[in-house]
């Protein structure tokens, strides 16, 4: 079963094409990560899934229903730009958001209590939002997206600005929701989180889909051209190798992207400096991301002309 099916969707604002002919299938029960640089079309895609803005062309069906508004009540949404009524009490606010999803107070109250306890907010239920710390407000915001027990949960940057303890708490909550059968889509800038949490990853860049698949598939596609090296002399030992395309310097070790054969490179490197560590590695999601999203000379030239 498919939770979200996006078919050839495009959306332009004025002359700017924010999303260009994107298709995507999110299987039910999966955790799908949306990644991409700022302004690449992530939020626009999410807003279209939420039916907040309509695509110019293409179709989107959510939870098997063609009109997203029909599925709205079964979708929980945490927007990137988040907000709470400052003067409202926590419990009243959560009830309001839940009722907007068509849930009855009787069914909401136990869920609200359970979540507040789980995220250590039970003592704050009757406090006003403006009396909460930023982290607490973020947790309340997260609860507001899940009180309706949605089948599909869409989280736009759910972990940004959270301390490690709260990040951990929310991550556990997300995994728990998935165990209960929910499908979760979240966007993030944190590649580490995406790698650890997501079953599948979707990357959008300049409005176009550039990656879509499981981490293994993606890493396989980006091949084994990454070599992790620790050689005496560090980075200096790596000078004058024409086959090195780029170096990601970690200080004690360097991740190198090679054009040629790693074995031939190793033979030449050994002649130059003692090698302590040599590993043919899968590229990290971070590396893949940077590789795709690093501005090309063409981009820089255009930016220069625009200026």
């Amino acid at each position, binding site marked *: 079963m498919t939770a979200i099916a996006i078919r050839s969707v495009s959306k332009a604002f004025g002359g700017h094409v924010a999303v260009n002919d994107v298709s995507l299938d999110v299987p039910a029960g999966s955790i799908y990560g949306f990644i991409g640089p700022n302004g690449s079309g992530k939020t626009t895609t999410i*807003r279209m899934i*939420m039916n*907040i*803005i309509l695509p110019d062309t293409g179709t989107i069906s959510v939870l098997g229903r063609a009109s997203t*508004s029909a599925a*709205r*009540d079964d*979708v929980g*949404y945490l*927007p990137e*730009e*988040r*907000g*709470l*009524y*400052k*003067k*409202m009490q926590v419990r009243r606010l959560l009830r*309001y*958001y839940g*009722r*907007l*999803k*068509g849930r009855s107070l009787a069914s909401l109250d136990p869920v609200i209590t359970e979540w507040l306890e789980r995220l250590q907010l039970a003592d704050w239920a009757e406090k006003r939002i403006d009396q909460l710390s930023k982290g607490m407000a973020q947790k309340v915001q997260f609860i*507001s997206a899940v009180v309706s027990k949605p089948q599909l949960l869409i989280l736009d940057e759910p972990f940004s600005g959270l301390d490690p303890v709260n990040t951990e708490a929310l991550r556990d909550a997300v995994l728990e929701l998935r165990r209960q059968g929910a499908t979760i889509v979240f966007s993030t800038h944190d590649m580490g989180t995406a790698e650890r949490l997501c079953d599948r990853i979707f990357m959008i860049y300049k409005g176009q889909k550039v990656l879509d698949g499981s981490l293994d598939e993606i890493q396989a596609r980006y091949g084994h051209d990454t070599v992790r090296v620790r050689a005496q002399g560090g980075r200096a030992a790596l000078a004058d190798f024409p086959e090195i395309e780029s170096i990601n310097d970690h200080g004690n070790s360097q991740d190198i992207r090679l054009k040629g054969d790693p074995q031939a490179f190793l033979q030449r490197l050994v002649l130059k400096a003692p090698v302590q560590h040599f590993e043919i590695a899968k590229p990290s999601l971070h590396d893949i991301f940077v590789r795709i999203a690093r501005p090309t000379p063409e981009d820089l030239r255009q930016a220069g002309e625009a200026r």
Partner: protein
Amino acid sequence: MNRVLTVAASEFLTLVRTKAFIIGIFLMPVLMGVFIFFMNYAERHADTEDRRFAVIDGTGVLFEPVARAAEAFNRQSGPDDARTGPRFLPEPVDLAGRALDDVKVDLSERIRKKALFAFVEIPATIIDSGRDVSVRYYAENTSYERLPDWLRTALNDEIARRRFDRAGVDQALVATLTARAPLTTFGLMHRTAEGKVTEAKEVDELTRFALPMFFLVLMFMAVMTSAQHLLNAIIEEKMSKISEVLLGSVTPFQLLGGKLLGVVGVSLLLALVYFAGGVYAVVAVGRVDLVDPALIAWFLAFLICAALMFGSIFLALGSACSDLKDAQSMLQPAMILVLLAYFASFMVMRAPDSALSVGLSFFPTMTPFAMMLRIVMPPGPPLWQVLVAMALLLGTTVAVIWAGGRIFRIGLLMQGKPPTLPELMKWIRL
């Protein structure tokens, strides 16, 4: 519909719980009471000075009566410690052979030194002449009218008395003969079904002024309270990025509908509180006849339309702004619309059946104010006019809600610079 009611209930509760609303609903009548009391008090107590003035009496016989009249006047102003009016203190001027102009210059000098407030010069021929001779009143503060007004009456009474005496006419007889007949205003007579002629109602200040004023101020208050709240709420939602959360659950039209319904509820609550107060006051002064259910029904109908119409205008404009500062400039035209209707209503109050008033009452943004007043005030508009105005108002309300909803839909997600009028138009057509 359920969602609309959820939004409406939340809006309603949020608004009636604000301190501003609770204070406002009670403070407004208190402020009005204080204002009226202060006006009254100021009128009675602001002018309690001694007004000393000199009298150059050319006739030699008018000073004494003026002094007597001044004493009578001062008695009316009350005793020293509880004075409610000024005290007029005349003093005679003896020329003692000096030139009149010298004396007048001296007196002017005394006025400049604040030893004197004014002086009058009564020409010797004033009793014998007709209108061509004038009493001359000199003062530094020429805008103070109470003294010259009083002097005019006091002198003329005495001069007339002397003229009648000289002509051999009895003063008391003249008073009876020239007594003015009073005129009292009434409404129209009715003949009931049983053929009984009902007493025409006496139209007093209460019906002519207080009742229309009550309705006018209440309408204005309700519109301003709801519009102000909607604007603040929508900007808060935009600034704290709540709009998008809401749009993830409800459509923009459900949101708009809920908010409008919420403020209609608040307006009705406001009306209810004030009607209760009004009925209590009317019963207290024994004028239950002023309570007219038809009037209240019309008022509520106009109130609901006004809340919806102005509410959607303010919501649409508010949704197009990203902060309060933008909103303030954006709102000026809408504000002027409300204020214009409010102030034009005073014109309507003066002449409810003039062509201008009739015209104004058909203009949709004015209708809730102007037509309401025309209904409250006799003779009252013909029913067809009320119905046509109501139909126009309803049509406009629906159109404004529709257009407002379209702006709202786009405005909610817009950030940054507020749109220009042509851009707003484009949003409506989009």
